[in-house]
């Protein structure tokens, strides 16, 4: 069949990107620091958040949105910190998107937040493509996962500003090679800040909390929007 070509040239993610920009504007107005946490299933996102919310809740207004394909178990775990927490059940979707965040914020009576944590669905491929309007993207990588994981999922590491090596208390038991892990993180994300921590023992948690608080203070000081 004879055909003609219609040029289109558009980014497939454009709708999500536009919604994420709207969210970013809204968070700029409220001075809320938004932290999007990515990792494989089982790297310790919920445990890290539990400890983080508990430590911050006393002096900062913090809240969390939690994405899972099924169950609200994680939200219930996090709610024990006393911080407002809302579960987003994504069903078939393997990641959160900006539209889900916008909808979850509607009618969520959490008051103005200094810091909003978003626990993404456990997956290192899909969430990397979706901007949620965050200021800080944090990718977790536990010592039990293999030092070359960043090389297998380069985009998740490359688009993150912080890479957190978790479960560091298990490093010796599993023969974790920290130098090799740092090198593979650097190979895909030369400018990333690397922190090492154990949410269970508390090792490295002060540095992590300081990092988040410093960013929150910076955002809170910034004049909200223009006009």
């Amino acid at each position, binding site marked *: 069949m004879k055909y003609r070509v219609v040029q*289109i040239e558009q980014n*497939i993610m454009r709708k999500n990107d536009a919604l994420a920009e709207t969210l970013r504007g809204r968070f700029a107005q409220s001075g809320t620091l938004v932290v999007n946490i990515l990792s494989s299933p089982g790297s310790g996102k919920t445990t890290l958040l539990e400890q983080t919310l508990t430590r911050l809740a006393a002096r900062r207004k913090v809240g969390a949105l939690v994405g899972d394909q099924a169950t609200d178990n994680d939200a219930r775990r996090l709610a024990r910190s006393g911080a407002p927490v809302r579960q987003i059940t994504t069903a078939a979707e393997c990641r959160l998107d900006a539209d889900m965040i916008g909808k979850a914020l509607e009618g969520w009576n959490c008051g103005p937040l200094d810091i909003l944590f978003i626990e993404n669905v456990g997956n290192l491929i899909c969430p990397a493509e979706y901007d949620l309007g965050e200021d800080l993207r944090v990718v977790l990588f536990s010592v039990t996962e293999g030092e070359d994981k960043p090389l297998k999922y380069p985009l998740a590491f490359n688009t993150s500003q912080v890479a957190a090596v978790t479960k560091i208390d298990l490093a010796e038991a599993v023969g974790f090679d920290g130098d090799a892990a740092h090198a*593979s993180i650097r190979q895909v994300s030369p400018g990333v800040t690397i922190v090492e921590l154990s949410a269970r023992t508390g090792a490295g948690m002060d540095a992590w909390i300081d990092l988040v608080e410093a960013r929150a203070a910076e955002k809170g000081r910034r004049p909200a929007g223009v006009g």
Partner: protein
Amino acid sequence: MHELSVALGLLEGVCETASRDAIDRVLAVHVRVGALTGIAPEALQFSWELASAGTVAEKSALKIDHIPLIVFCDRCASERRPAPASGLVCPECGSTCATIVHGRELQLVAMEVPQ
């Protein structure tokens, strides 16, 4: 597995363009997919078949242009193509490159329609 979301995003662009130009049949759709996106081509093909069923693009061919990862090496002052699974490391000088030139593409490029 976000290929179905990608296919639905593609379909939206295709249908919008078709309705704008009063096109009632689409024969093929061209997309650009970068190496860093983690998109599995077979899964995207399959998702496209599902997503396009019952639309102007039903049974249209999805033509995927695979874009390799290309970085800019500051030390070599040149664009380079890293070896597979070597991150953003320059294959010539071994330095890690901060700038991704190509590889993140996820674009609807064009469509073929009957003349």
